[in-house]
């Protein structure tokens, strides 16, 4: 009834090609932005920031990055944890080498460095595909973790091999370290997420995104119609690496503050982000958000319900969580292989026709 194109007249080409062609969608989008930027920062406390919102925002960036590579360009990657580690260590080296520079610049540079590393490891994708590429990126994962454990220069020769985020600011507002206010860390990550999502959304709607999708759907056919596979694949690796690097830098500097590479950026992190992308929906920006929210929130909700409300023993709840997350992944893959984004799409389709479905 209210969710439909009818009556929403487009009078210019710009209007016609906007991201959200339906009025309701557009207003919903503005409302979410208004709540996220205008209301949440005033209500937020440490628990909300550190336990729920920061991981959600940061994993969303990582999921968008991986979605570009896997969902849009069809290049399977198991190296997300390693690439996040590149972002984190690049950010750490930059933070300690140039303390007076703004955190914004550090995080963006860390993303750039990760993009470069990601392209290097993406080079084999020109020759190998599918499972073989997955194994090559798996090698990247193990190599990078080994490298950051092995070479003391990366962790500034600290005794424990850990990296600790010193206190840094941007425009005089403390962003990292224990004294950073919750709203500042939240807004900092939110700005990065918003910009990343906008860039990703517009890239995927334009020429670049269409060449990626052409490569994903059938690379030989794409080559025949004039898509350059070298350019398409490497840009996908670069853009994806840039986003994953940003998320790694934020994960270390803003969220955790101290990181041990093997534990924080191990293979389980790669799988976690991959699950987010698969559950959320391959090839969908909204799906990246949904997947990240699902896998970040589910453990917290289960814990709140199981331990705090029902007073079950903590170990039982922890085990249940494994069972439930595992079961949900299987159910999702069987019932809706295209992820939560597809559910959303179907719901929108139904809404459009409602109340006269025939």
């Amino acid at each position: 009834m209210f969710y439909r194109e009818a009556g929403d007249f487009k009078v210019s080409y710009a209007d016609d090609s906007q991201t959200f062609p339906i009025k309701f969608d557009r207003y919903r989008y503005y409302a979410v932005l208004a709540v996220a930027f205008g209301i949440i920062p005033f209500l937020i406390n440490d628990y909300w920031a550190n336990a729920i919102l920061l991981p959600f925002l940061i994993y969303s960036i990582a999921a968008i990055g991986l979605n570009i590579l896997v969902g849009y360009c069809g290049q399977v990657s198991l190296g997300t944890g390693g690439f996040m580690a590149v972002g984190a260590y690049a950010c750490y080296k930059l933070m300690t080498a140039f303390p007076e520079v703004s955190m914004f610049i550090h995080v963006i540079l860390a993303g750039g460095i990760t993009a470069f590393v990601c392209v290097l490891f993406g080079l084999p994708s020109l020759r190998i595909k599918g499972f073989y590429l997955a194994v090559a990126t798996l090698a990247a994962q193990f190599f990078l973790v080994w490298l950051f454990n092995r070479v003391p220069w990366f962790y500034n020769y600290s005794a424990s091999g850990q990296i600790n985020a010193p206190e840094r600011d941007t425009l005089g507002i403390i962003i990292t370290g224990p004294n950073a206010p919750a709203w500042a860390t939240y807004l900092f990550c939110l700005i990065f997420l918003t910009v990343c999502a906008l860039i990703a959304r517009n890239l995927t709607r334009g020429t670049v995104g269409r060449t990626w999708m052409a490569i994903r759907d059938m690379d030989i056919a794409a080559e025949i119609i004039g898509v350059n596979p070298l350019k398409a694949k490497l840009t996908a690796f670069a853009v994806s690496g840039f986003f994953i690097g940003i998320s790694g830098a934020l994960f270390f500097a803003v969220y955790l503050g101290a990181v041990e590479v093997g534990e924080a950026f191990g293979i389980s992190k790669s799988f976690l982000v991959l699950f987010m992308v698969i559950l959320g929906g391959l090839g969908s920006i909204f799906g990246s958000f949904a997947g990240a929210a699902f896998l970040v929130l589910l453990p917290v909700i289960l814990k709140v319900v199981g331990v705090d409300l029902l007073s079950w023993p903590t170990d039982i709840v922890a085990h249940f969580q494994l069972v439930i997350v595992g079961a949900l992944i299987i159910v999702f893959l069987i019932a809706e292989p295209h992820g939560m984004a597809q559910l959303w799409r179907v719901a929108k389709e139904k809404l459009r026709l409602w109340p006269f479905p025939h």
Partner: protein
Amino acid sequence: MKKTLTTLALGAAMAAGPAMADLVFPDLSYRTGPYAAGGIPFSDGYNDYFTLLNERDGGIGGVKAKVVECETGYNTEKGVECYESTKGQGALIYQPLSTGITYQLIPKVTADNIPLHTMGYGRTSAANGEVFSHVFNYPANYWNGASGVVNYLLEENGGDLSGKKIALVYHNSAYGKEPIRTLEELSKKHGFELVALPVDHPGQEQKSQWLQIRRDRPDYVVMWGWGVMNQVAIQEAANIRFPMENFIGVWWSGAEHDVMPAGAKADGYKAVTFHNVGRDFPVFDDIQKYVVDAGKAAGAGDQVGNVLYNRGMYAAMLAAEAAKTAQEIHGTADITAAMMRDGMEALVIDEAKMEALGMPNFGPTFNVSCENHGGPGLVGVTQWDADSKTWSLISDFKPSDTEVIGKLIEEDSAAYASENNIEPRCN
């Protein structure tokens, strides 16, 4: 997105619980994952001691103690979530039993004014109270442990280790890397050769490390392991027929569950410790009577008297005594985290107190001061007897090489202070 926000709001309403009048002791435990074997007995001991205080004495200074358990799975992200969710409930002290989580919490607790007690783990240089105002690691730290091992070996070899080869098998994490610096210094001082062999998380795969040990034939193997890594290492050592009496673990690699899987082959394996072993102390009669027999034991209730159970109980005892001290200093039974910190800094553990608690000779006597948050650092050695399935103390608690350790602590804490712009206190 909208749906997400609704669930968020719902969760907020649930997370904001009512203010508690009890003394809250959060227990960041791990009863799941590859490190659960160590996490369960420690957490059981920690819980049971507070249950005992509540049942027998009516709490601490008349106020009930409340333990809030939160499962971390030895994972730093969950540790942060646990910290944030419990700190609002009036948490008095954190004991995360994880070096990784400790590194995360050190700046946070200092900013939030809550004390952190990392007994025998964490950042060793936190022993310097001038720099680390809110972190305590009495009665002993990793470097005491490393030095204790070397001192014991010196004793066995008539005071001379030159030309000997010692291999360090360590968990490749902040925890396992912690002793390397001290051992390197000590190897220079005493002239032994140190070979460091990292084992990656979680430690089930150690074939190549033990192959190298078999090839290099070190005189002694020292282990800095935790969780499933310990059992695997002891099994591997038995497989290559490495003499068990030359294999020494740190105190996190010396519990019943570490040696049991290797059966009779583990006989003679040693581990250092900073507290006594066994259940031959009066306090265990009380635990049996008030906690276990009353059906109030934490977990399955089958861990009483195990090495790590004792350690968890000892950690709880030190926390409870610090709370009592804080109550005396501030003249109120309902203490806050800031008062708790003062209590920890003024903590005195003497013979009479240990006797009164039913733990005579269970741990060392010591005084905590503003400068010294590390305690005396006395280290004893225990050995496993596979026939009777018991650990027994074979070397009394002896001081470690404070000359070497003191210098390293000074160095490392100075580096931390300059990184974080901390002015030394205590003047």
